[in-house]
Each structure stands twice: as structure tokens, then as C-alpha cells.
């Protein structure tokens, strides 16, 4: 059962790749193999410098063995859980592991995990020269072999496209409005992502040149032939603003429109029932809001969403709140009010609210106290002797 306890290091497919394929196609194959081991974008910025990690510590066979063990283990796990081994996805694996090994730890990285070895073992560069000391890649002595091979690749493709265009012009079939590659909703790879792809450090200048070259490729009318190649170096933009769930308005027996919302801030939770009745009365946990929040700042927090949309005297609110202190309760209620107001507003107004930050839950929580310090940041009094 391969529940990987991933600290052991192995080697790469590179060596295998170098043995199997001959030099001419080595560069493209390298990139293809390198690409097959991509990691997710968000991990990019947390990763250490891969190229500087040194010669590989995981051997090729080790990685292969890990992969086989993982696959066998996956099937065993599926059998244990009574699921079909063929259609057992990574999500199912995560759920099963969480069920079988419940953990009381808070840090997600400390919990037991079973993932494909590609995601667990970091990518590393294989040894790039043979037993005789002669490097495999022809661009080894440039220092950044994968980067330059990529640039050469791209330029070769650009030349091929131009050649194709010339042939078409010669035949008289050249048209300006050929099918273009759609670039909407995607962005170029970031410098860090490219570095990770190539397992090499590149400078800002290099990165700029790479983007320039790709743009040049895209400027050719018939570049759609190389669409696959180009899309490999583009990422989809995340969908803007996790779409707010706007509940439809509900009507009570008298025909008055109302809606509810809830919000949280630090440890306080609040719920609000917003009624479109035309008076501006607010009651919190049964008491008047002036009495519940004697501090002006808290009342201003409650006022903010209403004042921002200009509906100060329109709504009647019944709120309940618990937990936290007065400030966090006010913040929780503010979020709850904004969410409840969404049902009464149009799309454009929802967007303005989102941009004003009224719909974003405040992620700040109390920072943990560290040992050896008096508080989260405060150190003990420094005594010279």
C-alpha cells in the first residue's frame, strides 16, 4: 500500500528519455517530457529554486517503482472502499484517506496524503553528460540549454509558418483573414512558471525575449498551424470573482419583500433578515442597535453598505449575532447586510459592491503565539546581561 510518505528523493525521466531518443528529436522530446510533469500554478511561488537543487537525488528506477506502487495502492484503496478501481479519481483518493486516517492537525501539509509521485517528488534536472563526460545536449555549453533550445524551437516554427505562407502566396491562395488563434481568457506563462517548466533559472531579459518571440510568431497570419505549441505556453485566467450566489427575493404574507444573509468575521457570526418596508429600524438580538453598539464606529460599519447604495431609510433589519467582540460582530453584520442586499440590487450595483470590498469576507484571524516569544510578534524583554 503506497501511502507515500514523501521525503525520499528519486531521479527523473530525463535519463530514460536521453537513452531512448536520438539527438535530433531530443529537444522537443525533452520539453514534452518535462511538460508532462507540470505542477499547478499556485505552487509555483512556494517552490524553492529547482535548478539550484543540485544533481538529482531520486533515481529513475525509484520514481518508476513509486509510480507502480501508487497505482497498485490506488486499486487496493478502491477495493477497500468498495468503489470501482477503474474510475477511482484523485478526489476519491483524498476523501478515502481522510476517512481512514482522520487527523486532528490543522496544517494541511501535515495531514496524511496519497498523491501521484509526480506531484510529490520535485522535478530535478538529470545529469546532462554521459560516462565519458560529454554532454548530451548540443546547447549544453550555453548554460541554459532548455531555454535556448526552446527559443530555437519557436524560431524554427516561425520560419516554417513563413515558408508555408510563401508557398501559398506563390499559389495565389494567400488570404489575410485566415483562422486566428484565440487568445481571449488566457495569459502568457509567468517567468516563475517558465522557470519551473524548463527546470532552469532565466533572467528577466530572457523571459522578455521569449515573450517577444512568441508574439512575433502570433503576428503571422497563418500561425494557427502551431496553435498547440502556443497554447502550451498560455494559462487560462481564473474566473473573476467567485460568482456571488444571488438568492431570489422572497415575499412574506403581506407582500413585503425580504431576504436573508449571513456573514462571519474572526469568531463572530451574524445573520440578517432584510425587509423592504420603508422604515429604518434595526434590532439586534432583540435590542435596539444604538443600545447594542454604543460605539459610533460599529454603527458606521452597519451603515456602510446601505449608505453606499443610497438606501438608508428603506430597509427594516432584524439581526442576530454571536461570538467575537463588538468590532468583529459589527464586521460580521456588515457582510451579512451586504449579502442580503444583493437580491434587491441589479448586476451593475452588485459589481460596484464587490469592488468596494463589501462582499469580501475579511480573512484576518488572530495570529498564533510562538514559543520563545511573549505573543505573536512581541518578543520578551531583551536584557543585555
Amino acid at each position: 500500500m503506497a501511502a507515500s510518505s514523501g521525503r525520499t528523493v528519486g531521479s527523473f525521466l530525463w535519463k530514460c528519455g536521453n537513452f531512448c531518443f536520438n539527438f535530433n528529436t531530443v529537444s522537443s522530446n525533452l520539453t514534452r517530457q518535462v511538460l508532462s510533469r507540470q505542477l499547478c500554478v499556485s505552487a509555483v511561488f512556494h517552490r524553492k529554486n529547482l535548478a539550484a537543487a543540485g544533481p538529482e537525488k531520486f533515481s529513475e528506477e525509484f520514481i518508476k517503482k513509486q509510480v507502480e506502487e501508487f497505482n497498485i495502492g490506488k486499486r487496493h484503496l478502491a477495493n477497500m472502499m468498495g468503489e470501482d478501481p477503474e474510475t477511482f479519481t484523485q478526489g476519491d483518493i483524498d476523501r478515502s484517506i481522510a476517512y481512514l486516517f482522520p487527523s486532528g492537525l490543522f496544517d494541511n501539509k501535515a495531514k496524511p496524503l496519497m498523491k501521484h509521485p509526480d506531484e510529490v517528488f520535485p522535478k530535478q534536472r538529470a545529469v546532462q553528460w554521459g560516462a565519458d563526460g560529454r554532454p548530451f545536449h548540443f546547447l549544453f555549453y550555453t548554460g541554459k540549454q532548455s531555454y535556448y533550445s526552446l527559443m530555437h524551437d519557436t524560431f524554427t516554427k516561425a520560419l516554417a509558418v513563413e515558408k508555408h505562407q510563401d508557398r501559398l502566396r506563390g499559389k495565389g491562395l494567400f488570404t489575410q483573414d485566415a483562422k486566428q488563434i484565440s487568445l481571449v481568457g488566457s495569459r502568457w506563462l509567468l517567468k516563475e512558471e517558465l522557470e519551473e517548466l524548463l527546470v532552469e533559472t532565466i533572467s528577466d531579459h530572457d523571459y522578455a525575449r521569449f515573450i517577444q518571440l512568441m508574439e512575433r510568431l502570433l503576428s503571422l497570419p497563418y500561425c494557427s498551424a502551431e496553435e498547440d505549441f502556443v497554447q502550451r505556453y498560455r494559462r487560462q485566467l481564473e474566473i473573476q470573482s467567485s460568482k456571488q450566489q444571488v438568492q431570489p427575493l422572497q415575499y412574506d404574507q403581506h407582500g413585503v419583500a425580504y431576504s436573508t444573509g449571513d456573514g462571519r468575521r474572526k469568531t463572530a457570526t451574524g445573520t440578517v433578515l432584510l425587509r423592504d418596508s420603508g422604515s429604518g429600524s434595526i434590532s439586534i438580538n432583540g435590542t435596539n442597535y444604538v443600545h447594542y453598539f454604543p460605539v459610533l464606529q460599529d454603527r458606521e460599519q452597519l451603515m456602510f453598505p446601505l449608505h453606499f447604495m443610497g438606501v438608508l431609510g428603506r430597509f427594516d433589519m432584524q439581526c442576530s449575532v454571536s461570538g467575537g467582540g463588538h468590532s468583529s460582530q459589527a464586521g460580521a453584520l456588515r457582510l451579512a447586510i451586504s449579502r442580503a442586499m444583493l437580491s434587491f440590487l441589479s448586476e451593475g450595483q452588485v459589481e460596484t459592491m464587490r469592488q468596494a470590498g463589501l462582499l469580501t469576507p475579511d480573512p484576518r484571524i488572530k495570529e498564533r503565539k510562538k514559543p520563545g516569544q511573549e505573543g505573536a510578534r512581541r518578543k520578551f524583554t531583551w536584557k543585555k546581561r
Partner: protein
Amino acid sequence: MALHRLSFRLRQTVAQVRPLHGSGCGQQQEAVGMELETRPETLSIFRTQENDPACQSEQHLGQYYTVPPSHFHTVFPHGLPPRYQQQVKTFNEGCVMVRQPALELISHLKRADYSKPTMRYLLYGVKGSGKTMSLCHTVHYCSTQGWLVLHIPDAHLWVKNCKELLPSSYHASRFDQPIQASNWLRNFRTTNEHFLSKIKLRQRYVWTKRESTEEGRPLGELVDMGVSRVKSSSDVVGAVLKELRLQAGGTEGGFRLAVAVDGVNGLWGRTTLKKEDKSPVAPEELTLVHNLRKMINNDWCGGAVIATLSQTGSLYAPSSAYLPQELLGEEGFDSMDPFVPVPVSLYSEKEFESCYLYYLDRHWLQHPHSRTEEGKKELIFLSNRNPSVLERLCAFL
């Protein structure tokens, strides 16, 4: 004389009010003729010329009337809330809003039968709703009608924060509070100067072996003695109260007595005072409180008792309590029963409007946004039309 000064001030305020209602930029020097035309319209919104509380009626509801400065120091040496006193000093005039509870009280006082035992009126409401101001309005009415006003500014002051507690000479188990008593007597003297020489004592009071006050001496002498001889001032207070109680309904030289107590729930709660052996002092053991309780009992006639409840200075009462039952407690409620409860509510829309205009008129709201409709809505929201909250809010605008 006062009227002349009043009209002059009115002319000044008109010159300031008009640009605000107009374009709102800078002072414009308009012809006097134009001002005269617009003066009655702009002023009648929130001010009234009717400065005599006896003549005010429902049509003046929500409007401000000015307390003439001559009355100010005599009638209110010690009764007004401190923030209001500061406001009077800043604005150079004392303006009181005519509100429903005060008018109701005054109408009761006008129609009451003074040969029957005293009526007791109790003003109650949430914190900051204007109970003390209504009480002061009523006290002003009483003093303009020529009553003798016994105004205790805050009964809580007598049950807490007392530095000196002397064992009473008159009664062994009771305690005296010389400082509070002498202060009060001084203020009492300021308020009721003209009565002091008229009322004669009906009994002989012996203070020490050598000091005594004979029958038939004017009350003023007794009060002076209390102010100067601090040690026996609490007993003097008791004597004064007794005399007034006896003589209030009298047919010859009869005067009406108004007992105005602010924070009456302090008389029946607990105290924060301690005896030398650290045991707590009950309110009954304080001479002042004991005598005041006798005053509030309705076994005398010829006057009225007007009281307010106050949570602000009260001891050991939760901040959400404002009803008579909660604040007076069992004992207090039984002693006050029967009484006429007068609820004091937050500002209505009209009252809020006139308060807002008054502040604008006095240039108290400096922030340009506060003059807009939106600013007004914000003020309504943030204060929920609570008078004291609004006042504190506008203080820094």
C-alpha cells in the same frame, strides 16, 4: 428689554439662516426689507417666540423657546445636564425644545386639584431621550408661576462618592453628609430667594447646646445657618423639608411646592458607601435620603412631586433597564405607587428636523456634507433619533 435683545438676535440669525437655505455659499448682504419679509417664515420652523411655558401648547411642539438669561441663573443653578450647560455657554443662549412629555406634565399641573394629596409624576424612558430636560422645562414653568421649587439635581449624588460620612447627632443609627447637604442648601437659596423671608418657622429647632432657631424666624435664617454650619447641614435640610411640607397647602400665605427629583430610583437602591467596619450603608441610614423619602410620600397637599428615573448614574442596575418597575425595585415602586407615568420617547421626525435646523442655525454643524439630504439621513441612522446620541455626534461635526 429682554424682548428688544431677542429681536436683535433674531435679526442676526436671519442673516445667517438665509444663505444656508439658499445656495449655501458665503454671507450675502441682502437689503433689510427682504429680510423682514422672510423672517417669519424661516424662524417659525424651529423657533418660537413664546418664551413663557404657561402659554405653550401643541402648536409649539418641536420648536425651541429661549429661556430668558435673567431666569437662567436663578432657576437652574444646579439642575441642568452638564453637556447642556456647555452647550448653553457655547451658543450664548439657553434654548429648550417644547416636547410632548413636558407639555403633558404642565397641563396636568395646571388642572390638578391642590387640596387633595400630592400627585406624583414619573418621567421614564430610554437613556438619553430627554427626561432631565423635560423636568427642567417643568421646573421653569413652576418657577414662572411662582411656586417654590425644591429641585434635587441627582439623587444618585447622595448615595455614592461621598467622602465624609458623619454619624448623625439627631438619630444614632443614621449618617450625615455635610458637603452634599450644604451644597444643596446653597443652590436652594439661590433658587427661592423671595420665599425665604416670607415663610416663618413653626417650630423651635435646637442644634447644639448653644445654637437654636426659634419659632417664627424666617426660613432664610435657617438656610443660612445650614450653609455656614456645615456639620449640621443635613439636619437643616430635614428641617427645611418638614417646614415646607407643613406649610405648602396652608390657606394663609399658601404657596405651591414643587418637588423635582432627578434620578429618584437612587433613593431605593443600594449605596456604594461603607461604614468604618466595611459593611454597606443602606439608603435609609442616610439622613438626606430618609428625609427626601418622607417628602415624596403623598401625605401632604398643595404641590406636586415630579421625578425622573435615571439609569445613567444608578448603581447596580443593568444598562438596558428603563422601565419604572425595573429601576425602582419593589420597595421604590410601592412607595411611589400611585403615580402618573409619563413616557419620554426619542425624537419624532418633526423634532429631529427642528433640532437639526437649530444646530445648522447655530453653525454647530460645520461639515459641508452635513447640510445635504444624505448627511441628514446618515445622522438619523447613526443616532436613531436619540437626542443625546445626536448631540454627541454633532459635537465633532
